[in-house]
């Protein structure tokens, strides 16, 4: 048997069911490795003590029929967890301990999983490098001083470094897929309305979706099956029949039509990304898929549209962090001064930047020119995809325009940072499911990802295509454990 922490969710589940491993052994193995991996800074808050107790409790009366039997899982610190501090990577929620559980994490525990701890992320999920977190940046296990992507950077690093078997992140403009791409892991953003947003600290409500982040496609299908559910507590949750994704997982994609959008060949795209995409197309053909050239004409407008819609919603969503009811408060002589000091000191620069952008685009006199226009463009982007999906079953693109960059490299250039999301944001704007799978490496040996985009509620087909491609690509993340301490 290979080392416990390097096992996939599928393997661990099997070992528990066959009683080859106990939940306690697994939980302790991950905790032990986490203790030695502080250098990566993946955890904001650990739950190790309680996790061990819960694993023992599981072992004393194991329910082996559950889908995540006694499996310890760390989650992004954007999910509210009962009795466990939830910070959203922000000083303003530094001391916030929820009395309630998010629906998505509750689904994990209902299926037998155990909370290992809360993973670092960009502040309020605003960032593409995990550098905006109040709790410091996370290092990418792929290489020292390398960003793990963002905003689910603690999550991607934790999966890649074998610190949690799987995890869940959230994706507003690429926050699951981009970090997955940067760390050689798999990340899926489900269709908007698949996973409940109840109990997830909101960034941009019309775009936010929780999703699985895993070592491989099979694990991804297993986790999606658990977290995707209809929830009356979220008015945007959609009641539809969800598949048994893992059961229906298949490499047979013969005859499936896969679209290649020409607009994704952006200017200055590195050759290695172009090559990666070509390889992906070849593999897809090898699997019997049919490649179809398609056009998504409004792709160019996706990024500016996103950077109007998301900050607009965020500026309103973050108004509740005012020092009055919970979280950080900086005292003032009067209400206005208390607000100003609390929010000035409680929020970081990137969050403030987006609140200002959002406030601006919603202001009277600018609303029509920015917010309203962005909403109209968003409809056009959605229509592009609707048209494309009348011809194809899925769309294949690169996940990101580059591999992981160095910590600090882009912190003073927000626009270059925002460009990281160029291939992922259109999918959020259109509410579609998208998955990033590791597909190759650049000249530095850093991982690169391919993205498969599907029709609404057709997570199965993108999982199946990814499953088939994964087999052909046979990607190996060579991570040297350089950060481990004794």
């Amino acid at each position: 048997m290979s080392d416990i922490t390097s096992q996939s969710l599928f393997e661990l589940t099997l070992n528990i069911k066959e009683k080859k491993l106990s939940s306690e052994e697994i939980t302790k193995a991950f905790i032990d490795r986490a203790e030695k991996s502080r250098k990566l800074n993946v955890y904001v808050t650990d739950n190790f003590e309680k996790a061990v107790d819960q694993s023992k409790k599981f072992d004393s009366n194991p329910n082996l029929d559950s889908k995540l039997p006694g499996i310890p899982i760390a989650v992004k610190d954007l999910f509210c967890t009962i009795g466990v501090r939830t910070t959203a990577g922000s000083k303003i929620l530094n001391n916030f301990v929820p009395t309630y559980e998010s629906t998505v994490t509750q689904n994990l525990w209902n299926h037998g999983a155990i909370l290992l701890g809360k993973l670092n992320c960009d502040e309020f999920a605003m960032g593409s490098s995990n550098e905006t977190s109040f709790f410091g940046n996370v290092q990418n296990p792929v290489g020292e001083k390398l960003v793990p992507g963002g905003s689910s950077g603690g999550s991607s690093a934790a999966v890649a470094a074998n610190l949690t078997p799987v995890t869940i992140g959230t994706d507003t403009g690429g926050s699951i897929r981009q970090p997955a791409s940067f760390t050689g892991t798999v990340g899926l953003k489900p269709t908007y309305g698949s996973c409940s947003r109840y109990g997830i600290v909101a960034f941009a409500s019309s775009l936010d979706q929780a999703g699985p982040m895993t070592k491989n496609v099979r694990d991804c299908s297993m986790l999606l099956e658990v977290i995707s559910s209809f929830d009356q507590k979220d008015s945007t949750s959609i009641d539809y029949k969800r598949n048994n994704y893992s059961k229906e997982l298949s490499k047979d994609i013969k005859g499936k039509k896969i679209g290649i959008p020409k607009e994704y060949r952006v200017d200055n795209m590195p050759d290695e990304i172009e090559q990666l995409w070509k390889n992906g197309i070849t593999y897809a053909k090898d699997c019997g898929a049919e490649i179809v050239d398609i056009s998504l004409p409004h792709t160019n407008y996706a990024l500016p549209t996103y950077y109007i819609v998301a900050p607009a919603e965020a500026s309103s969503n973050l108004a509740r962090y005012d020092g009055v009811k919970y979280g950080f408060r900086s005292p003032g002589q009067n209400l206005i001064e208390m607000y100003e000091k609390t929010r000035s000191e409680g929020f970081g620069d990137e969050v403030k930047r987006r609140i200002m952008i959002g406030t601006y685009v919603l202001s009277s006199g600018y609303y029509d020119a920015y917010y309203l226009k962005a909403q109209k463009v968003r409809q056009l982007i959605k229509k592009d995809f609707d048209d494309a999906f009348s011809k194809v079953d899925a769309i294949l693109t690169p996940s990101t325009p580059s591999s992981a960059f160095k910590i600090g490299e882009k912190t003073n250039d927000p626009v270059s940072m925002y460009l990281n999301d160029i291939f992922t944001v259109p999918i959020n704007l259109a509410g579609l499911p998208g998955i990033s799978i590791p597909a190759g490496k650049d000249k530095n040996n850093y991982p690169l990802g391919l993205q498969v985009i599907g029709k609404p509620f057709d997570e199965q087909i993108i999982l199946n295509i990814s499953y088939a491609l994964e087999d052909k690509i046979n990607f190996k993340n060579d991570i040297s454990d350089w950060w481990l301490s004794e």
Partner: protein
Amino acid sequence: MSKNSEYLIDRENKQYEVIIGLEVHAQVTSKSKLFSQSSTKFGAEPNTQVSLVDAAFPGMLPVINEFCIEQAIKTGIGLKAKINKKSVFDRKNYFYADLPQGYQISQYKYPIVGEGKVILDMPNGQKEIGIERLHLEQDAGKSIHDIDPNNTLVDLNRSGVALMEIVSKPDLRSPDEVNVYIKKLRSIMRYLGTCDGNMQEGSLRADVNVSVRLKGETEFGTRCEIKNVNSIKFMQMAIISEANRQIDLLEEGNEIDQETRLFDTKRNETRSMRSKEDAHDYRYFPDPDLLPLEISEELIEKIKSDIPELPDEKKKRFIDKFNLSPYEATILVSDIETSNFFEEVIKNSDVKLATNWITGELFAVLNEKNLEISQSPVSAKNLSKLINLIKDGTISGKIAKTVFEQMIDGDQDPLIIVKEKGLKQESDPKAIEELINKVIENNSDKVAEYKSGKDKLFGFFVGQAMKESKGKGNPQLINKILKEKLNG
């Protein structure tokens, strides 16, 4: 409306007209809040009816209370208004300590109810007031500044309670019309059960828009909005004071600034709260946590079929069916409880007598004791019994008043009072004849005077006969027999 009933404010040979529009905030009658399941019960301990959603905890999401939607539709139908099949909840963004989300969920561009109307019964006839729109929104919490000298305390019990904002067109022209308008709105909503209209508990408040113009002018003047006035009396005072302030400004050659003002009830004057320049930019945008609200034709039809008879229709029925005067009918239908009481009484008794007794004796008692008709000390059942006793001649109207006074004390049965006190009217002609004979015997001198032409003395004999009967003699019989005896 006739010219002389116009409400005009005079200034040296000039007459100013006052233009008023109201934004009424009516609390929806509902057990739970607009977007959460917390209770809306009035008067609970502070912060005991607050859910995580109401207090805007991270990750909490609003879920619409469908009952409140139905209540708004119902009210819209009662206002003869257009129900919009698609409406949108927007966020109205501003910071305040008692606004936990940092925004109020309201409806801005696309309200649930469009244009409608309300008919006012004014002394000189009817007047139609246009309704611009009705939209749903959540209430804020309450900031309390006077308990702790150093801190403001916040009570979130009200946070998230559903309100209907009913916006009138600028059709109102006097404080009297405002009075009748508010009462009519309140009456319609109480008939429908969509708002209890309780102004003491803050269930009905209004922002009052006031402008003035010279009589005959057709353009509107610059208006000022007086925020959050919570009684009809204060609304009227605020309008008079604000109109006069504006007229004084114009008379001095000044302009009126469009601004938001507050009414100081102690000083009876309005004062500036914020100018147009300082007006909030609420940055309205559709709430992404809520899908656009779509209402089916079936739901509208279902609600329509449940709409009870409303005051205007009921008034018409009372006039047509019971022959009431428009004045009587207006009084009886103004409040649903009153009309219910009336209909209960007339189930088994005379309509004319019931109308007189309810609008006369009963209203006097209610006024005196400051009671609502729902708290009436005399039940409809016992009042109808009393009316029947009058109608069948068991007691006279005069005796009935004595009986009624006793009924008030614990809703006593008039039949028992009449029996126990022996108040039954004497209607036996023989007995009446006997006592009249006695009166004639005892007053032979007066009889002589009467017979010699002093007709006025007839009243004296009636009085004596009544006295002799200890007030119980049937007045009609006494009259009849007296006439026979004296004239015969």
